[in-house]
């Protein structure tokens, strides 16, 4: 299944793991940050509209 490397397998896998791991974490953080920002914006603007209506 996994490719069989001649030597230095640990080094090769470490590189790909670092690449995949850090990109995965980055994607996760960016996604969560965008979601939080959107939620905060929705809440703040709803409050603004609510006050206007009142």
């Amino acid at each position: 299944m996994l490719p069989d490397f001649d030597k230095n397998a640990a080094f090769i896998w470490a590189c790909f793991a670092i690449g995949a791991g850090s990109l995965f974490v980055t994607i996760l953080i960016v996604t969560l940050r965008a979601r939080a920002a959107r939620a905060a914006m929705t809440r703040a603007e709803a409050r603004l509209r609510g006050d206007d209506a009142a």
Partner: protein
Amino acid sequence: MFSWFANPLRFMRLSNWLAPVCYVLAALLIGWGLWQGLWIVPKDEYQGGDIMRVMFVHVPAAWLAMASYMAMAAMSFVWFIWRHEVADIAAKSIAPLGAVWTAICLATGSIWGKPTWGTWWQWDDARMMSVLFMFFLFLGYMALRASMDTRQKAARAGAILAMVGAINVPLIKFSVEMFTSLHQNASVMTADGPKMAAVYLWPLLASALGHTFLFAGLVQTLMRAEIWDRRTAKANAKLMAEG
């Protein structure tokens, strides 16, 4: 052309479909590149055997380290001249992502160096050294923006620093190349040389393009988050003024 993008609402409409497209293209290209790179292409004995497969993550990261700094400087320049808010939001969003890819480039380069040169850090490699200084430029940019007390000041200070950094990059690269050429034995990594076999070329290009699309998608998502943040701040300021 810049003014067309400068409208935040237009950017929101555009990125609403463009960012997902970028993510899909990135997944396809990176997936194909990795599959080719890890399973299909033959190893190159002249480059230390299977270890050369690391280039399918290292080279795209190196490309993005350079390209993202230049993109950030270009956005800063656009902001400085035309004061388009979206350009500042772009520059601000590029910085942390550029730093991530720069860090990946440094880490994978270091790990590749150990079995190849027998050392974790090769001071004589001009490209690694240049990328290291690029990393410091990103950190300085982020730290400077973070220490300004309003977004307008952060935009101005960041733009000045990004432009100063950008005009220094050629000089830094030149001096680093002079430094390294003295000390050594030419670089072992010739992955981007013109004589590279076509079997490597296409998977490598696909990986580089895929990383670029991922980067572009993430920049757009971060920019959207920043625009939402600014809308929240505006709404809160209004609420405070009313209260």
